[in-house]
């Protein structure tokens, strides 16, 4: 059980900077999910915490203690790799027992722990199989068992669910969350799937190009994204972004492409003052905060249906408004043919405004 503090961590490989001045504190017993696209630096960060990579600069502290020069074995962490890294020539039981042998547990102790852990993960029937004989889900659980069999201070997980097929992934999400609560250990979990992040993490840290974009609870990163990247990355259907300018006289936001003009809310009028260039703004609105109807109203935007994606419990309709595309979430019964003219309305109270240059959130 321990907290992890990452201080100004920088890691570069030759000319590429993988992690850039990352500072993050993970509380003891917290389930923190670090999320970001491929290449954002998440795996590198995790490996630095594990001791598998040496930071170019900065420090990793466990409970305030600097881990520089401490070997991975001595850090007492558990690591679940993306492709599990099960020892190919050892049976499942030997795989799971391996860490205990390294720490010189007696045979009796080892056996007891292996039984405990395999029962918890319901793989006690697979003990004498070899890794290649197991399915993806089973391999995953063996990897987890190997991590759980000791009682490490910290669990580090590198996209462990990516290679599972999607049914299994949903199941494992809740299991992992349950296991973390039961074991009451710090989990530092890395993934590129924002759904995993939202559903599992106590807090979420969003990473892009080696830099920390925002860290907070689900509500915080979803409702109040700190910048354009977080807003675009978090959310199962991407937020709509429309370039616009603020017209102070009319108190309105006008599209840069000239296709529309909307009255700005009171809050917008205040927040917009923080930007340097009123002509370069980005309006962000989530698909569920846009209404669509085939009839026309007065102050509504007009567009043409481009594509309709039926997702089962809802549809996502892509509407072309001038040269820009707006995605709208609709109930599943809502079916329109491509090419049909529609009008759409934004819930301005739920809209976000971003600075066009810095991409920071203005509200």
């Amino acid at each position, binding site marked *: 059980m321990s907290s992890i503090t990452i201080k100004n961590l920088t890691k570069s490989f030759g000319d590429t900077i993988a992690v850039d001045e990352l500072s993050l504190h993970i509380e003891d017993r917290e389930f923190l999910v670090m999320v970001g696209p491929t290449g954002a630096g998440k795996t590198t960060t995790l490996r630095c915490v594990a001791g598998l990579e040496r930071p170019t600069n900065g420090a990793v502290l466990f409970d305030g203690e600097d881990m520089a020069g401490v070997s991975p074995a001595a850090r007492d962490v558990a690591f679940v790799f993306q492709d599990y890294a099960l020892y190919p020539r050892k049976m499942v039981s030997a795989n799971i027992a391996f860490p205990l042998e390294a720490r010189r547990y007696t045979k009796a102790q080892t056996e007891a722990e292996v039984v405990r852990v395999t029962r918890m993960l319901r793989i006690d029937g697979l003990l004498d199989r070899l890794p290649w004989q197991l399915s993806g889900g089973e391999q995953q659980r063996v990897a987890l068992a190997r991590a759980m069999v000791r009682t490490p201070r910290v669990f580090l997980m590198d996209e462990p669910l990516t290679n599972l097929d*999607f049914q299994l992934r949903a199941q494992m999400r809740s299991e992992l969350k349950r296991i973390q609560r039961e074991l009451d250990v710090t989990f530092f979990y890395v993934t590129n799937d924002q759904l995993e992040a939202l559903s599992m993490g106590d807090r979420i840290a969003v990473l892009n190009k080696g830099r920390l974009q925002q860290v907070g609870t689900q509500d915080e990163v979803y409702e109040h994204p700190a910048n354009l990247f977080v807003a675009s990355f978090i959310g199962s259907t991407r937020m709509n972004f429309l370039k616009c300018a603020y017209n102070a006289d009319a108190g309105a936001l006008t599209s840069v492409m000239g296709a529309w003009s909307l009255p700005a809310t009171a809050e917008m009028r205040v927040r917009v003052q923080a930007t340097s260039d009123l002509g370069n703004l980005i309006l962000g609105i989530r*698909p569920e905060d846009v209404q669509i109807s085939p009839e026309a109203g007065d102050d509504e935007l007009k567009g043409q249906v481009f594509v309709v994606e*039926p997702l089962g419990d809802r549809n996502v309709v892509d509407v072309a408004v001038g040269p820009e595309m707006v995605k709208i979430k609709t109930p599943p019964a809502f079916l329109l043919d491509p090419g049909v003219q529609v009008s759409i309305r934004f819930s301005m109270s739920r809209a976000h405004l971003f600075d066009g240059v810095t991409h920071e959130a203005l509200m």
Partner: protein
Amino acid sequence: MSEIRIQDLTKVFPNGTVAVRNLHLDVADGELLVLLGPSGCGKTTTLRCVGGLETQTSGDIWIGDRVVNDLGPGERDIAFVFQFYALYPHIRVYDNIAFPLRATGVSRDEVDRRVSAVAETLRISHILRERPKRLSSGEQQRVALGRAMIRRPQAFLMDEPLTNLDAALRADMRIELKHLQNELGTTMLYVTHDQTEAMTMGNRVAVLNLGVLEQVGVPLEIYDRPNTLFVAGFVGSPPMNLIAMQLAQDALKSEDAQQVMLDTSVADRIRAKQTGRELVLGVRAEDIRLTSGGNGGDLRAEIATREPLGDQTLYSVMLNHQLIQVTTASTERFEVGETVGLHLDRSRLRVFDASTGTALV
């Protein structure tokens, strides 16, 4: 463009595995039909048989108006898009796309015209001079598509082309592909294990399991009215909740004696068709409403986990040692451990026979 007809297709591998069993499926001219199923269900094998990369053990394949059983892949006038693009790495994008044309001796001007047209449709005109190595996955994907499109084949066969892309890119490419297919009216047979992809892209979806066709229909039909337990559990995210029940007069009784009242006509229909006593109630996460306190709903359960997903919240509730998934709007809030009442939308329930796995209502 033409239709594809798969008649009574069976494929048995030398080691005895029956990959595909008596498959009967038609792809209409201009249709995008998705073959959906878990790994090992036979979808890729079927695709390869249609393409001529595998020889079927028995059955006929028609492309357009001719039987193509004895024709090699090159003679069937189809294009294949693989999971890993298979772009020629050391020649430029332009040459990659032009390659199939040059093989058939088309004139230089004609080649140029057609490559430019295809590049414009796919919006890759600006990278024609690049080598595949320098392209992003999305661009590589489009080049692979271009190479397939250039010969104007009768049909496209696509083997999980988006699997290797990042989640965000996949979502974008899905839309593009769908839009492209709409515009060009190409016949496509598309294989995937991702049910979201299947739902959003297919004009119709064919669900396969262990070599057998479980159901084929438009996405909403597969989603709203799955015919078998397998389809019910496979399509939909989160998967449909499947609860063991028995019929007692006009109600479905769960193991802990809770009851879900049914219309008499519905109960009669179930009674008429059931083969045994065991039934399975299928209800989707979004068709269950939660209310505080245990009373007033069809069933009572306790909240086990809460996952806020942004635009909705996913709860799993413990009912009889089984976790049931319920999605609600993010404005509703229930705490873990709270007892809640589950209200099931009667119009959206499915009841399956537990032994045959088929839907009764």
